[in-house]
């Protein structure tokens, strides 16, 4: 899949913009602060409905305007196309349009356009909080499974409700306003979230090992492991006929979740908050048995992150049967020559790629000759050369 036309209105520092990227490599060159990453942010938002950096969606709205709009014409491999549009407004937040028709929910946008983003901030995947790794999982899975997006939203809602009940019970020890009911809601949706995270990391781990071996020259082994806060061990899934059509991973997660929650019930009431569940999960990354965050070398950490991103790319490709759009934000300068050329090798001719950089020197001439170059200056694309 590729983006044939991209339009922005009042998005970050873009007043109005329309570009027609090439289906192959697109290089966005310009000085820092001129809006290169904002373009990638808009594409990513069309794919995931989320920004990769803003804490609030309304941050993307240009100052003095009521709303920001991003629009893309997406072309699929069979030649058909689809228009996707997302509007972030100060008042009623986010809305989406698909082929011009307003979607019932913004989440309906998921799965129309797929994108993988890689930028300097992604080092958080290694040395950041577990929340960064959960976010990585969530955004990757949600792109392939709209149901996951909904399960996750329902899980968070029941978690918030349950926490309100726990706070109430902490403050009035004699009172139980239906904790069991919210526990049930939380485990129902939470187990569905865990089931998908198991399946995702299983696949991802295999792809990441391969990508890491390729990038690092096959010397070390990367291990990616899902660590649910419950401590359930993933077992090989049983055939669905044996479990009455319900996934055995779901059932196992649900049983463990119930047992663990019963065990910590008193502590949860005392603290007034939910202590275990998908909101406390983590992803463990280790290289040759050593935890990745303990690594001294920045280079190795970057290789781990890049491997995860390439694995995510292939995972999306496998799941949806078409290549996602690759968004590489200012990563060329951080990689050594060898890894840089391996990365370019991976994306060249395979998918539509957008790369931002401050100068073109980091690109080999033969790569540059087949790329479309956009010069970004102060919220405008000044010249286009190809």
């Amino acid at each position, binding site marked *: 899949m590729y983006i044939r036309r991209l339009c922005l209105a009042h998005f970050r520092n873009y007043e109005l913009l329309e570009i027609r990227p090439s289906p192959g490599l697109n290089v966005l060159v310009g000085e820092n602060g001129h809006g290169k990453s904002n373009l990638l942010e808009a594409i990513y938002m069309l794919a995931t409905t989320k920004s990769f950096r803003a804490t609030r969606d309304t941050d993307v709205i240009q100052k003095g305007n009521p709303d920001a709009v991003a629009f893309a014409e997406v072309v699929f491999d069979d030649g058909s196309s689809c228009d996707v549009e997302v509007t972030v407004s100060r008042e009623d937040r986010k809305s989406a349009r698909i082929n011009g028709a307003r979607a*019932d*929910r913004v*989440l*309906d946008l998921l799965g129309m356009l797929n994108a993988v983003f890689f930028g300097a901030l992604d080092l958080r995947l290694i040395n950041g909080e577990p929340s960064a790794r959960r976010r990585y999982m969530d955004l990757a899975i949600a792109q392939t499974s*709209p*149901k996951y997006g*909904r399960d996750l939203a*329902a899980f968070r*809602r*029941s978690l*918030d*409700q*349950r926490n*309100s*009940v726990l706070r*109430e019970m902490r403050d009035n020890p004699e009172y139980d*306003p*239906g904790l*069991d*009911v*919210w526990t*049930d*809601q939380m485990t129902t*949706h939470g187990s569905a979230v865990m089931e998908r995270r198991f399946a995702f990391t299983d696949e991802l781990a295999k792809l990441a090992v391969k990508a890491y071996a390729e990038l690092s020259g096959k010397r070390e082994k990367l291990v990616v492991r899902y660590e649910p806060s419950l401590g359930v061990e993933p077992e090989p899934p049983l055939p669905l006929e044996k479990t009455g059509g319900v996934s055995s991973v779901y059932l196992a997660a649900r049983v463990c979740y119930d047992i663990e929650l019963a065990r910590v019930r008193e502590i949860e009431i005392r603290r007034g908050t939910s202590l275990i569940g998908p909101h406390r999960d983590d992803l463990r990354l280790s290289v040759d048995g050593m935890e990745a965050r303990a690594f001294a070398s920045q280079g190795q950490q970057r290789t781990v992150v890049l491997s995860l991103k390439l694995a995510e790319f292939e995972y999306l490709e496998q799941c949806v049967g078409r290549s996602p759009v690759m968004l590489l934000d200012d990563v060329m300068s951080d990689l050594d020559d060898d890894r840089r050329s391996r990365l370019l090798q991976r994306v060249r001719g395979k998918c539509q790629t957008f790369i931002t950089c401050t100068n073109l020197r980091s690109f080999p001439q033969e790569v540059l000759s087949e790329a479309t170059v956009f010069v970004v200056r102060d919220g405008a694309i000044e010249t286009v050369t190809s």
Partner: protein
Amino acid sequence: MLAYARPLARLIGELEKLPGIGPKSAQRVAYHILRMPKSAALALAEAIAEVQEAVRFCSVCFNFSEDEVCSICRDPRRNKTTICVVAEPRDLIAIEKTGEHRGLYHVLHGVISPQDGIMPEQLRIRELLQRLDQSETAEVIVATNPTVEGDATALYLSKLLKPLGIKVTRLAHGLPLGADLDYADQATIISALQWRREM
């Protein structure tokens, strides 16, 4: 506001407080009322006053009613052994329009939502229990919305009522009938797939 005559501004201000009515609609409605024959405008004003004066909660089912006990609860032809529990009076109207439910109703006036301070005690659940205690109810149909809060409220009721020997059922959710599959929203299709039936 300077351009409006003062009574007109007051009317627009009052209309704007209504749900679904923004400044533009409020202005349009206000001008319309101003141009109406006086009798029609007074009929509207009287209807507003009367709805406040004459409508109260039915003491049995807590739907809005003109009398102490509403017409549905008084109707001898209704099946007294089945009670359909709804969150809001408008849900009752939606079900009643179908003519398929011949039993009685009970209006909770909301769903449980601890985050918003709505605990079970704030709903008409205690009244439902008292009612069940004094009647020969065999089945309670829970017709709350299929949302996290609607589901939780249904579950809360079933945990409360099942030990009393009452059958508790829940409305099914699935594809809208007579409509195209590709017009159904994703959540509906996902749920319909999840709850598919063998034929």
